[in-house]
């Protein structure tokens, strides 16, 4: 669907963390990111890419396992893409679009 010309541009998205996850990301809830619109293999940038990207580039805390376990978002962390449960959007396979909002909420912390 994406054209090559589009892939040259960045893919601006907003990523938010809450429920305690913000502590792993400079204690900042909202992050504006610009991702490449294609990954290294030429595939459209998807959620799997984003999760890896966040671990490699944005996480300020060494405790990666608080966010990711076995290459996927840790059980107990909810993911909402534009407010919708990512289960409705294909989870890792969801291809990110311009100005998407992705929210990660931990349910593991105090209630």
């Amino acid at each position: 669907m994406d054209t090559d010309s589009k892939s040259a541009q960045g893919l601006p998205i907003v990523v938010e963390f809450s429920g305690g996850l913000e502590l792993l990301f400079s204690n900042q809830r909202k992050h504006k990111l610009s991702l490449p619109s294609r990954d290294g293999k030429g595939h459209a940038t998807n959620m799997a890419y984003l999760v890896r990207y966040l671990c490699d580039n944005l996480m300020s805390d060494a405790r990666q396992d608080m966010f990711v376990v076995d290459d996927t978002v840790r059980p107990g962390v909810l993911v909402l893409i534009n407010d919708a449960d990512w289960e409705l959007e294909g989870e890792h396979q969801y291809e990110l679009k311009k100005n998407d909002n992705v929210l990660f909420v931990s349910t593991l912390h105090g209630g």
Partner: protein
Amino acid sequence: MAPKMCALCGTSRAFIVRPKNQQKLCKECFTTAFETEIHNTIIANSLFVPGERVAIGASGGKDSTVLASVLKTLNERYSYRLNLVLLSIDEGIKGYRDDSLETVKRNAVQYQMPLEIVGYDKLYGWTMDQVVDQIGKKGNCTYCGVFRRQALDRGAAGLGIRHVVTGHNADDIAETVMMNLLRGDLPRLARATSIVTASPASDIKRSKPLKYAYEKEIVLYAHHKRLDYFTTECIYSPEAFRGSARTLIKSLERIRPSAILDVVRSGEDMARLVPDEVSGGARPNKDILVVEGEAEIGGGCGSANGRSSGGEMADMEKQLLDIEHAQGNEIDIALRGQKHDRNCRNTNRMPKKLHKQQMGKCKRCGYLSSQDICKACMLLEGLNKNKPKQQIEVSVEEADSPTLTRRMEGLKVIPVHQT
């Protein structure tokens, strides 16, 4: 990919996938379904009586905030005629409660409910920070948990309120069932599952209206209703056994979302099979389990629902447990829940009468207790004995430990209410 539509109204886009049945719902239908189910739990278990004053144990966290919001909504929608009050505990952990108490204060305005804040320093003469200075960072959740349990009761009693509701959810219960299964503690497993606990020791009834609500849905409800809550974790809580049980539950949920409610229901079914002799001493009435209140569910201090239990304090916990088993000073009204009662045999099994305990007062603090010394005072005694420096020297009672120093306030622990 075309957006999926709501399974109930068919007209709005689905945003939520319900963990218990994979139903895809729009925000509005989800909100209604979530609230209605809690209403059904409340009615099926006769949790409230009209005109009752009810204190909501409020931490500013998601569970208690959702509980307050939903109870306010249901109270108005179904005319429960409840008089709802927010009750918060200030453990005295520097910086830790500041934000959450601010949140609770905002909630009080948002929900137009009176707010009462009760501090450990006032109740016990010790803030949690001072406890931690004394015993170190590990294991202090035991203290926090014991103190907290009484604090809610004392706070409520001080307001003349005899019913406290807490935000324990299905995940919390499943986690506790699992923990007790893993450590072979069937009596505790049995007690953990009950939705109401009445306690002659404190004269305060405790209940958990969110018992069947998934944590995931609680978070989503808070998110979609834009509720004002605060996320924090007790900075002193070590991730111990409870943490592992929690991880296990969440991992099971990932594979089979219904697992959480299934574990809760298994716990209820198992509870029914636990003989009296096992569940806390021989009881004249088979329907009553004698328990020590909320100790079973999340005794820690991360929130109203603690997330951990200190490994180092195993001995103290065991000691406390033994006392419970031996004396059992609280009564668990094992109300039977709802739909899961496949064989209906026990559906309406209500206790005929409460087993009367000979109640006395804690010799230290005057708090109603069937034991000479209540749990909190037992812990306080240990703390006060080992208090190495500073503070006013009073050295009373324990004439055989002349070096003993005590804090004045520590001694005076609270005969506040409950006469």
